[in-house]
């Protein structure tokens, strides 16, 4: 970019572009949390372990009169 071009179209920092756009800020403020909380929830649900078979067997066995 030549000096003349830079004078005509000054390079605007990315962060300033973001802060200048209120609707983009609004969108990101909702979207970032919505997506991350959804992902967190899905990860939590996917990581729940099945009920331990040993405990299940133990409870049923005790009910049957065994120890």
């Amino acid at each position, binding site marked *: 970019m030549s000096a003349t071009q830079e004078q005509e179209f000054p390079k605007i*920092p990315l962060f300033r572009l973001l802060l200048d756009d209120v609707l983009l800020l609004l969108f990101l403020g909702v979207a970032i949390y919505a997506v991350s909380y959804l992902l967190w929830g899905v990860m939590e649900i996917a990581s729940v372990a099945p*009920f331990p078979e040993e405990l*299940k067997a133990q*409870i049923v066995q*005790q009910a049957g009169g065994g120890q």
Partner: protein
Amino acid sequence: MSLQPPAEGWYETPVARDERSWVAVATVVCLCLYVWMIGWHIYGRQNPSSISYRIEPAEYMQLHTAWVPRYQIGEENGVPVVAPPPGSDVFLLGQMWRWAPVLVLQKGQEYTFHLASVDLLHGFSLQPVNMNFMVYPGYDYVLRFRPTETGEFTVMCNEFCGIGHHMMTGKIYVVENAAELEQLRQRFQAPQQ
């Protein structure tokens, strides 16, 4: 007007000293709360165990039904009264519209509570100590539970679960020692009026 971009040149304007101070104060408060949260998680006395298991409602019902008669000491208003031995597992069931069974626990002893629903979402609310946990069908929520005071405690449902929601109450008795447990056993074994 807040929906308009700020005045030209705002990005290069230095931030005022009082605004910097407020940002610094807010950051320090946030960090303190963050440290407090971690500390409370480690040293707090009412933290849930964060253990949960997947289990089909029918399977949980089967476990509950198998476990209740083993330690049952009587009945109260048609609901079985169970006195599980200290250190054992307790299978509490939430179902439209009852909590079962009624529990008799000993003060200072630890129990492993399993909480699950067999139909829809219920809320386990222990009163008057005000401990609240959501109870989902398909999931077993495990709580390590050590009663610290004796008395009669009520379990209520605090998630609306239909027309009988307000009647969905349960009970937990906490006794001091084996002698008090025996008194309760005799009371529940006697025919109720």
